[in-house]
């Protein structure tokens, strides 16, 4: 039986519920979770193989989600998963509502942004996320590391007045492009940390930028409270899909996942890449 440590934020609940319902075959997960950016409070101890929480609140979350652990000894695990922890395409969509590349402009009143600047923005945001912090703590641990970004926002996002633009043809093209750019950035980040990138299964995605609404039904987050029209969190059915993919990689049945990009994104990517940059 392989042991896998999963660091996650509020998405940890859907993973935990899925694991409780159907324990993974051949491997056992240990969850370490805290809401939002809480895991930025983790610290390495000793020779770096032990991860400990700093601060009372994080300590409580740490123990609660892990089943009583007060520290993680990385030596005891065969693989480490970094799930969500702020790596999410939602930020890119938020930026896109105000700043748009010229070729993808869907709103005349928006401000222009170049594709390199947009990419730098995503990098800068990701740098501040808990995922970057945890990757930094574990990157030299010598274990298999899996980086799994947060799921794409679900279709409930379209219920919000400030995201109606995604419904338009141009808006959707822009959202697909931004999502593809985020994937590129996650791939670069995974590569830099020596991690395997685990992307969301393609068949759970609609319009190239959103998670199918069916996975939002009964969505759950770390506080345990469900609320209507949550555009961020997903249910245990989706959690099982994630665990299946993690198991596939950990057990060597699956190398890694990749995701296709829409033709528009590929076209745009070709126009970038000044070697001087």
């Amino acid at each position, binding site marked *: 039986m392989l042991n896998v440590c999963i660091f996650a934020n509020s998405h940890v609940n859907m993973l935990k519920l899925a694991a409780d319902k159907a324990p993974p075959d051949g491997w056992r997960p240990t969850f370490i979770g805290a809401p939002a950016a809480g895991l930025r409070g983790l610290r390495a101890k000793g020779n770096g193989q032990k991860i400990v929480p700093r601060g009372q609140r994080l300590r409580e979350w740490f123990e609660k989600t892990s089943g009583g652990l007060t520290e993680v000894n990385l030596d005891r695990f065969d693989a480490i998963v970094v799930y969500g922890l702020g790596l999410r395409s939602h930020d890119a969509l938020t*930026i896109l509502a105000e700043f748009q590349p010229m070729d993808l402009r869907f709103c005349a009143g928006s401000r*222009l942004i170049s594709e390199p600047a947009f990419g730098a923005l995503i990098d800068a*945001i990701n*740098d501040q996320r808990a995922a970057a912090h945890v990757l930094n703590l574990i990157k030299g641990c010598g274990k298999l590391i899996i980086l799994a970004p947060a799921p794409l926002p679900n279709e409930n996002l379209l219920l919000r007045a400030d995201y109606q633009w995604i419904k338009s043809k141009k808006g959707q093209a822009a959202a697909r492009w931004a999502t593809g750019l985020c994937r590129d950035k996650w791939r670069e980040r995974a590569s830099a940390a020596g991690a395997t990138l685990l992307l969301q299964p393609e068949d759970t995605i609609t319009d190239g930028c959103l998670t199918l609404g069916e996975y939002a039904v009964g969505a759950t987050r770390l506080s345990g409270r469900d609320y209507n029209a949550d555009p961020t969190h997903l249910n245990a059915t989706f959690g099982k899909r994630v665990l299946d993919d993690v198991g596939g990689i950990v057990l060597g049945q699956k190398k890694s996942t990749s995701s296709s990009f829409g033709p528009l994104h590929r076209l745009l990517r070709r126009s970038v890449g*000044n070697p001087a940059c």
Partner: protein
Amino acid sequence: MKSPYQSLPPERFWKTGVSEQHPFSIIDLYKRKFRILPTDKIATAGSCFAQHIGGHLRAAGYNVIDAEPAPNGITDAAARKFGWRTYSARYGNIYYAQQLLQLVEEAYGLFTPSEPVWEKQGRYYDAFRPSVEPCGLSSPAEVKAHREEHLAAVREVVETANIFVFTFGLTEGWIHRESGTCYPTAPGTITGTYDPKVYEFKNYRTSEIRASFEKFRSLVLERNVTAKFIVTVSPVALIATASESHVLSATTYSKSVLRAVAGELAEDYADIDYFPSYELIATPFSKGFFYSSNLRTVEDQGVRSVMRVFFSQHPAIKKKPSKEKVLSKDDIVCEEAMLETFSA
């Protein structure tokens, strides 16, 4: 027998005004000509050194205009890499007065620049602010679209600023031979290609710089009667000269010319004040103490000393300065520094 020097205050004498003073505590070096009100909107522009001023003013609670704000969530370092949070709009460094005038003229349709787009390895750059998009843009049309948006922001700055702080940096520049269009960098430095038939070196003279700034002032006042101006001279030496002189002589010439123009402007116009950042850093008074080992870059404590003198006359609005990080010397974006790569 009376002497006109007899009743002068201590700061008018070198011994009491300079020799017996310390750069960290000098008093009466600067006396403001007008107040900056807490409600005043301040615009900043100029050469690299000017980047410090906006950051310190903002940290002190002054209302510094940001007509092209960066997207939320971006760090300062990432923002500055793309020209955000550097000046009141994303115009990059404006090293000399002709550049400043040209920008405002262009913003109001009074001037159409030549060769506005420069190309490098299939990417396209705004020739007047190549550093704000360090990777360039995908087409000349995209450069044009971005520039139009930028010029709208420049108009906003011109029409809303109550105080315009400008730091004169250089006298040397590069212009388009036929039209006189001026550029912040020599073609071929960051981008573009140097063709001596198209571009030429220009070392602006005192009268030209003064005329450019006076015209700039008039254009601003025509659109914004409330505007006042604070001019400074950058103490940062030329990193290279395209003149026939040694770079030390070229620097001395440039800074002397700029200091003379700034002084004349302040003497002749009630709405122009001169702030002596140059004196504090670059004269024998500070014995080179504020320069890095390259005798060019101003150390952070030099900038702090300059701002201390500024705030002695324009007190910080916030009692406790904001925790917002002010720029350090390593944060400064300076295209001119690229010239060093051409050094043997």
